[in-house]
C-alpha cells in the first residue's frame, strides 16, 4: 500500500505461536494415546495426524506471512461470499457431516472443512475493510454500526443452526473488539453488550441442552455422573495436577474419564500432567501472543492493517479465554477448542493462516 520495505516479523509473536503449537502436538499425543489405542490399536494415531497438520500449519503460516497482505483488502468481499455459501451448504443434507449431534463439517473426500472456521477469517477481513474505509461513519449507529452488526446477526444465525455456540461467541466477541478499536461510541458499545447478553440468554433458553450446561456450571456436583460430568472431571484432572503435576504421560483422567480429553478439554490434561506450572506457561504464552498481537495492531502502518491485526489477535485470544474459562469451571461448557493446542486439522490450518497474516502485518510496523 505504502510500498515500505518488509522487515523481520515479530519474533516474540512467532515464539509464542511455535511454543504453543509444539506443546500442543506433544500434549495431543499424551491425551489421545488411550483413545488411539482403544479405537485404532495405535496410541500414536492422533499424534501422527496432528504432526502432519502442524507441519501443514507451519507451511500455511509461512505462506500467509509472505504475500502482500494488502491484497486482502481487495479479496475481502469474495472471501466473505464464499464463506457464507459454505455456511449455507453445510445445512444441506448430504453435504454436511454430523458429529456428536451437530452438523459443522463439510466432507471433501478424506478431508473435512469447517465453514465456521472460514467465516471467522472472512468476517475479520471484511470488517477491517469496511471499518477502515470510512472511519467517521462508526460514530453513527445506523450508517456505521448497523451494517457490521447485520452481518454478525446473519452469520450468528447460520452458525447457531449447526449449532455452535462457542464459535458464535468467539465471532461476536471479535466483532465487538474490532468495533471498539475502530472507535465506536461507548454508549453504543454498552447498548450492544446488553443486547449481546440478551442474545446469549435467548440462545440458552432456546435449547434445553444449553440450560443443562448452565445448571451443571452453577453446581456441577449436583449431578456428577450426568450434567456435571465434564466439568467435574476437568476439575478433578486440574486438581490432581496440583503444583507440579503427575508428570508427562501420567494423567489418569485421560483413561476415558474425561471426554474430549485431546480436543476441548486438553487443557485439563495439561494441568493434570504438568501442574499449575505447566498450565500457567500456556496462559502466559497466550498473554505474550495477545501482547505482541495488539502491539502489532498499534504499530500497524494503516487503519486496515490495525483493525485486521486487532481482529486476528482477538479471535485467537477470545477463543483461548473461552476455552480456559470452560475447562477451569469459570464458564459453562460451550464446546470450543484451544487454539494451537487442541487436536483438529482444519481449525489449526485456519488459525495458522490467521497468525500468518498477523505476522505478515508485523513486518510492516512503524517505529521499529
Amino acid at each position, binding site marked *: 500500500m505504502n510500498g515500505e520495505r518488509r522487515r523481520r516479523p515479530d519474533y516474540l509473536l512467532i515464539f509464542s505461536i511455535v511454543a504453543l503449537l509444539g506443546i500442543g502436538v506433544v500434549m495431543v499425543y499424551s491425551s489421545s494415546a*488411550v483413545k488411539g489405542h482403544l479405537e485404532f490399536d495405535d496410541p500414536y494415531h492422533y499424534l501422527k495426524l496432528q504432526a502432519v497438520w502442524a507441519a501443514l500449519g507451519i507451511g500455511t503460516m509461512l505462506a500467509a506471512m509472505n504475500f502482500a497482505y494488502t491484497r486482502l483488502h481487495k479479496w475481502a468481499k469474495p472471501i466473505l461470499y464464499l464463506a457464507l455459501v459454505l455456511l449455507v451448504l453445510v445445512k444441506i443434507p448430504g453435504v454436511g457431516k454430523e458429529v456428536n449431534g451437530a452438523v459443522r463439517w463439510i466432507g471433501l473426500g478424506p478431508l473435512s472443512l469447517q465453514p465456521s472456521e472460514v467465516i471467522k477469517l472472512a468476517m475479520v477481513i471484511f470488517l477491517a475493510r469496511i471499518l477502515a474505509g470510512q*472511519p467517521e461513519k462508526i460514530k453513527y449507529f445506523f450508517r456505521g454500526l448497523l451494517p457490521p452488526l447485520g452481518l454478525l446477526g446473519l452469520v450468528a444465525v447460520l452458525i447457531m443452526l449447526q449449532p455452535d455456540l462457542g464459535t458464535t461467541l468467539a465471532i461476536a466477541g471479535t466483532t465487538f*473488539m474490532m468495533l*471498539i*478499536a*475502530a*472507535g465506536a461510541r461507548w454508549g453504543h458499545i454498552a447498548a450492544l453488550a446488553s443486547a449481546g447478553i440478551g442474545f446469549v440468554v435467548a440462545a440458552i433458553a432456546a435449547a434445553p441442552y444449553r440450560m443443562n450446561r448452565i445448571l451443571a456450571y452453577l453446581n456441577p456436583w449436583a449431578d456428577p455422573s450426568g450434567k456435571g460430568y465434564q466439568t467435574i472431571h476437568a*476439575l*478433578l*484432572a*486440574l*486438581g*490432581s*495436577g*496440583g*503444583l507440579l503435576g503427575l508428570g508427562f504421560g501420567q494423567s*489418569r*483422567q485421560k*483413561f*476415558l*474419564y474425561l471426554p474430549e480429553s485431546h480436543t476441548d478439554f486438553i487443557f485439563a490434561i495439561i*494441568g493434570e500432567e504438568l*501442574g*499449575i506450572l505447566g*498450565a*500457567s506457561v500456556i*496462559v502466559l504464552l*497466550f*498473554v505474550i501472543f*495477545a*501482547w505482541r498481537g*495488539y502491539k502489532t*495492531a*498499534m504499530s*500497524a*502502518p*494503516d*487503519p486496515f492493517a*490495525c*483493525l485486521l491485526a*486487532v481482529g486476528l489477535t*482477538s479471535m485467537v*485470544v477470545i477463543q483461548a*479465554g473461552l476455552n*480456559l*474459562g470452560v475447562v*477451569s*469451571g*469459570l464458564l459453562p461448557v460451550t464446546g470450543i477448542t484451544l487454539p494451537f493446542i487442541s487436536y483438529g486439522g482444519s481449525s489449526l490450518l485456519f488459525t495458522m493462516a490467521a497468525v500468518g497474516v498477523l505476522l505478515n502485518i508485523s513486518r510492516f510496523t*512503524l517505529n521499529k
Partner: protein
Amino acid sequence: MSTSIVMRKRVALIFLVMGICFTVIIGRLVYVQVANGAALRKIADDYHFRGVPVSPKRGDLEDRNGNKLGISISSETVYAIPAEVRASGRQKEIAKQLAPLLGMDEQDVVKRLTRRSSLEFIKKRVDAKTAAQVRLLNLPGVWTTEESQRYYPYGPLAAHIIGFTGVDNQGLEGIELTRDEELRGTPGSILTEYTAGGISIPGGKNSYIPPKQGNTVLLTIDTNIQGFAERELDELMSGQGQNLNGQIPKSASIIAMNPKTGEILALASRPVFDPNNYQAYDASTRRNIAVQNGYEPGSTFKIITLSAALQEKKIKPSEGFFDPGSYTVLGKSVRCWKAGGHGSQTFLQVAENSCNPGFIEMGQRLGMDNFYKYLLGFGFGQKTGIEMSGEAKGILANKKRATALDLATMSIGQTNNVTPIQLITAVSAVANGGTLMKPQLVKEIVSPSGQVVTPFQAQPVRRVIDEETARQAREILESVVTNGTGRRAFLPGYRVAGKTGTAQKVVNGRYAEGDYVASFISFAPANDPQIVVLAVIDGVRDYGGVVASPVVKGVLLDSLKYMGVKPQDGAPLTPKPLYGLEVPAVKKPVTVPSVLGLSAVEAEKALKQAGLSVVLEGQGSMVIQTVPHADSVVEEGTTVFVQLGQEGDKPALAPAEEEEDPDLEVIKALNRQVPDVLGRLKD
C-alpha cells in the same frame, strides 16, 4: 495514512481487558489446582482406584497360659472382576475351565463372572493347591486372595465358651461373638487403578493398605483344668460314671472358678459339639446349660442358708438342736431324711448330717425378709453377668406370696430355681471371705504386637457376709466333707469343703419320680480356697453325693496337684470330725493291703497284721472285694468289710447304709405339687 491515536488507545485498552481476563483465569487455576488440589485428587483417586478387600487375620483365642484354643489358618478365595472378564469376551471359556476346578456348576460360575459389580466372589475357602491351579490358568479377570479360616486345635474342648465363626469369619457364638470386635481387626485392601471402562490401567499404580490384625483374647480358662472337667464329663456320658451302673445322664456340666477373682478356670457341658464342624451337630448341643439352664439346687443351697444364719447370728455352731425326725410348718410335717431323726446335735452336726429340720429351723429363725436379703445378696434371681449370651436369671418364689412352708423348702434348696453359674458364684463368695465376684471368662486382650490392651480386673459385686462368718461357714463345710455327707469328696491330705445336692425335676408340670439332678459343690483348701468346683448332672436315678462327688473329686484333686497346691500339714488323711467336738486321739494311718483272691483265712490274717479289724461277708472260697479298697489309707483299727465269693461273681455294691440323701427324703416326704411360680414363669 496511519492509525489514529484513538484507535491505538482503544487497542491498548482491549489488551488491558484481555490481560485482566487471563489474570482471573490464573487465579482460578491457583484456586482449583493449589488450594483445592489435594481434595480434588482424593476424589479423583476414588474414581480411579478400586479396592479388593484384604481380610485381616482374626485374633487368636488362647487359654490363660497362652495355649491356642482358636487360631486362624489361611485359606484362599477366588474372585472375579466382571469388567475385565467382559473385556476379554471369554466368559464361557473361563467358566468352563474354572467350574470343574472349584467343583461348581458352570452356569453358576458364568452368572458370577458376568454379574454387574466391581468385584464378585466366586468361591471362598479354597485350598492352597486349587488356588495355585487357578492362578496357573492365568484367566483374565480371575484373581485369588488370601483369607483366614478359623480352626480350633482342641476340638470340642471348651466349645460352649469359645463358640464359633461363620463363613465370613464373623463371630456367631460364645466369646467369638461377644469379643468379635476385638478379634476381627480391620480389613485392608489392594487398590488398583481402573479406566472409566472398568479395565485395570496397564502399569497403573497399585497400593496395598495392610489389614489391621485382630487382637488376641486370652480366656480365664486353663486348658488343663478344663481338660480334667471334660474328661470327667466324657466318662459320665459314655456310661462309665461312678455309681451310675452304666446309666448315661441326659446332660451334665462342670464349672471351676477361682473364688478370689471370679475367673472361670473351666466350664464344660454335655452334650457338646465340635466348633470346627458345628453344622454337623444338632443346635441343641450348643446350649450352654451351665449358664442357660436353671435347676433346683437342693442341699447345695444349704451353704447359703447356713451363711445367712451365721451372719445374722441366729445360730452358733456349738449350739444344740434337737431333731425329732420331722419339722412341722403350717400343719405340714417335713421329715428328716434319717428315720427317727438325728436326735440331739449341735448346728455343726446339723450341717454335717445335712439335717433338714436343722436347716428349716435356720430359715425360720432368719425370717422371710432376712432370707430374701441373702437370697438376692448372693445373686440369685439375677444374671451374674458372665460373658455368655442367653444367660438365665433363674426363678425365685414370689416373696409377697411366699408362705412359711415355702420358706422351709427354700431353706433346704427346694422351690427356687438357680443356674449352675449362680450357685458357684454364690459359694465362691463364701469361699473368698464374703465378697460376691462377677464371674469372668476373658483374662486379657493382647494386641498383635504383644501389648496388653485390656488387662484383667477382678470385679467385686458386693460384700454379702463378713470375713468371720465366711471363715466359720468354710470350716463347717470342711467338716461336712471330713465327717459328714460329703465324705465321698474327701481328698487325703487336703482340707476340702463341700456340699452335695439332689433335685427333683419338673416334667410336664409335675415333679418326676426317679429322675434327679445330682450336684456337688466343693472347694479347697478350706482355709484358703484356690478353686471351687461344681458338677451338675441331670437325668440320673441316683443322688448327688453318690453320683456327683466322685466327678468333682476327680477334677479337684487333679487341679490342686496341677496348680501346685501342696497337701497340707495337719490335714486329715481320713475323714474325721474337726470342729469343736470330742476329737478322738489321732491313730496311725494304715494302708489297706490287697487281699483279693485270697482265702478268707489268709485275708483275715493279712488285714489283722496291718492293724485292721475284719468283718467277713457272703459265702465263697475267695475274696472278691474289700471296703475300703486296697491301697486306701485308713486309720489303724478301721473295720474292713471282706466280701467272699466264687470266681466270676460280681462284687456287690458298696453298702448304702450311709448314703441316704437328705434331699431325696424331703422330695419323697413332701410329695409336693409344683409351685405355681414355676408353672407360670418359663425360662
